[in-house]
């Protein structure tokens, strides 16, 4: 089955800093999504991005399907960006990475 690896596992940044989160996967995919899990456990959709680049405010994402990776960029971090970020891929199963835990210091 598809293997999904996220890096880094943990990231601590000062408010205002920029960050790049990476998701590597082992096989070609039809679907790739990025989620933010808030402290209450809710998974918030960030991007549905099987390929290409998308931007939404301070967040953007790029998936290079031929090279089997996706990147999530967060610019000008705010304390509300803290939480765990997951990428997930889909074939007959939906496979999540182990996540990147982001902590933004005020």
């Amino acid at each position: 089955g598809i293997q999904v690896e996220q890096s880094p596992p943990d990231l601590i940044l000062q408010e205002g800093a920029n960050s790049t989160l990476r998701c590597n996967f082992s096989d070609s995919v039809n679907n790739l999504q990025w989620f933010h899990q808030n402290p209450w456990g809710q998974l918030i959709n960030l991007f549905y991005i099987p390929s290409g680049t998308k931007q939404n405010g301070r967040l953007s994402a790029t998936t290079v399907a031929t090279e089997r990776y996706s990147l999530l960029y967060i610019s000008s971090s705010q304390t509300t960006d803290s939480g765990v970020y997951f990428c997930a891929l889909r074939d007959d199963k939906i496979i999540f990475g182990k996540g990147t835990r982001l902590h933004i210091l005020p």
Partner: protein
Amino acid sequence: DAGVTQSPTHLIKTRGQHVTLRCSPISGHKSVSWYQQVLGQGPQFIFQYYEKEERGRGNFPDRFSARQFPNYSSELNVNALLLGDSALYLCASSLGVRAGGELFFGEGSRLTVL
């Protein structure tokens, strides 16, 4: 429009008991999938249903079962509960399977087994 709704939000059971969790998908979505998330880990895929048929199964014991109803809502059943079943159980809906569009998650059901 209502998002994915799950019930109950919290529940406490004892070892050996049975639990039923419920999920209502977004209107128009025909696929529902279930996940278990234990503390500190990513969600683990349990089942995926589409048009009332099982379309994928994760590595969970037979104590876990699910079904999807004609209105596309779904139930997850867990028998003979173990302490290790304590987790957040998440449900997601989508238009279809595989390339079938974006997954949307409910707020989850938090199960504690004593």
